[in-house]
């Protein structure tokens, strides 16, 4: 479904992503873990086309992205951003925000009510502005927006890290339910190992712009990791859970 080969991204003198290769199968849920600045979000933004690629090849669903992204690509691939306070237009109602993808793709507006229902938001919120919603509600709106045009790939950039712990679990469960119902392909980026382990079948650990290790769920649960950085992350998350 998604292939990246020897991906490099440079911002001026900063070499943020240094030769990342990954493969994600249809319906798979793939996690990218790493510290801040490890380049994991940049990989995601490069896939979405928000960050220009310096070198390497990206293929999604047989479509080589070097040739640009057409409207069909944006129906297929959608993204949920980290900060629900920054990813919703402050001057637009929820209704207007959700209507925008429908207008662009020429889809019926009846989908708005259905999308709100799918993310368990009350129809009463439909004509409110983002500043009138809580963080969790906003992130649900962002998820509804990403889903409204029926994508097959969802890119999730730390979708829960800006939320309260109690709300985090709700949003994670919502994402898991939606993935099961819609057979979506996920790429989830997070610095939080338990979050990734909750949602993802396969995990890649990034450090300094490179993937240092790829683990399946079983070896992650068992704590079998060969790279020292992965072991550090596992130990850290156990410390935090124990605390």
């Amino acid at each position: 479904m998604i292939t990246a080969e020897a991906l490099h991204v440079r911002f001026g003198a900063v070499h943020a992503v240094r030769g990342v290769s990954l493969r994600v199968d249809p319906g798979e849920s793939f996690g990218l873990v790493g510290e801040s600045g490890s380049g994991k979000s940049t990989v995601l933004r490069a896939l979405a086309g928000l960050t220009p690629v310096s070198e390497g090849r990206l293929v999604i669903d047989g479509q080589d992205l070097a040739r640009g992204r057409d409207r069909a690509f944006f129906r297929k691939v959608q993204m949920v951003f980290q900060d629900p306070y920054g990813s919703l237009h402050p001057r637009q109602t929820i209704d207007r925000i959700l209507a925008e993808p429908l207008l662009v793709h020429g889809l019926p507006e009846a989908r708005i009510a259905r999308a709100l229902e799918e993310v368990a938001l009350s129809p009463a919120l439909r004509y409110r502005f983002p500043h009138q919603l809580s963080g969790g509600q906003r992130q649900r709106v962002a998820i509804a927006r990403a889903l409204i045009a029926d994508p097959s790939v969802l890119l999730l950039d730390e979708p829960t890290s800006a939320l309260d712990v109690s709300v985090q679990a709700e949003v994670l469960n919502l994402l898991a339910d939606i993935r099961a119902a819609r057979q979506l392909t996920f790429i989830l980026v997070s610095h939080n190992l338990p979050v990734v382990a909750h949602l993802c079948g396969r995990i890649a650990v990034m450090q300094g712009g490179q993937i240092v290790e790829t683990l399946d769920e079983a070896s992650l649960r068992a704590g079998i990791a060969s790279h020292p950085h992965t072991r550090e992350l596992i130990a850290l998350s156990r410390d935090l859970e124990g605390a």
Partner: protein
Amino acid sequence: MTTRAWLLSDTPASRRQAVWGRRYQGWLALKRNPLAVAGLVIVLLMLAMAAAAPILATHDPGAQNLANRLQPPSAAHWFGTDELGRDVWSRVLFGGRLTLGMVVAVVALVAPIGLILGAVAGYAGGWLDRVLMRVTDVFLAFPRLILALAFVAAMKPGVESAVIAIALTAWPPYARLARAETLMVRNADYIAAVRLTGASGARIVLRHVLPMCLGSLVVRVTLDMSSIILTAAGLGFLGLGAQPPLAEWGTMIATGRRFILEQWWVPLVPGVAIFLISLAFNLLGDGLRDVLDPKQR
């Protein structure tokens, strides 16, 4: 349900209700500022008086009566008469039409141009940004009145050339402002999310970036109104705006200045009119800034 409850509803039931509710809250915020309300009232009053000039005027603004020249204010001539025996009250009303009409024309010309140029430059970036901004810099480098003077002098003096001349010199600050606002929002996640819907660049700029620039632009325009009025009046004063016998506030002061000591009402009345409208626009602009400027919220 009262209109007020409908407007302030926490759970609007339609797009229209949500939008009007938001506007109503802005209005409530503006209403809390008495100076801004005073400015708004004066502006609306003067616009209404200018619009209703043919009804409110007691005399024909062009009718001369040399036997009756330079009369002090009286029951027949509320603000007296000028050097050709024309009624000053009627001339100020009709002059308001011309002066305020010029200002409105300048703003209608300038604000969209500045807004679009600035937003396009800011959103596109790269060479387009550089070209547009250097052109803006060139226009900014000229002193406003001097460039307008040169332009009017090159064309024939008159109301239309004055409007074009002022517009020519007034747009660069708006382009700069719109560009700065655009640069602030262009990398925001909510714009990235719109890009991910596959929307075209034009759609993103028009529907998502421009609304974010509008607030500060409206504030800036109202604050600039007074300087546009003063420039228009200044061109009129220098004989390059409206030509006699047309009544225009700047021109009226220019012809009346000879009588400032003995027949003070001739230049004073249009002067007070300019002062009042400039002050009112400034007060209104200050109030609007508190309501509209996103940075102050």
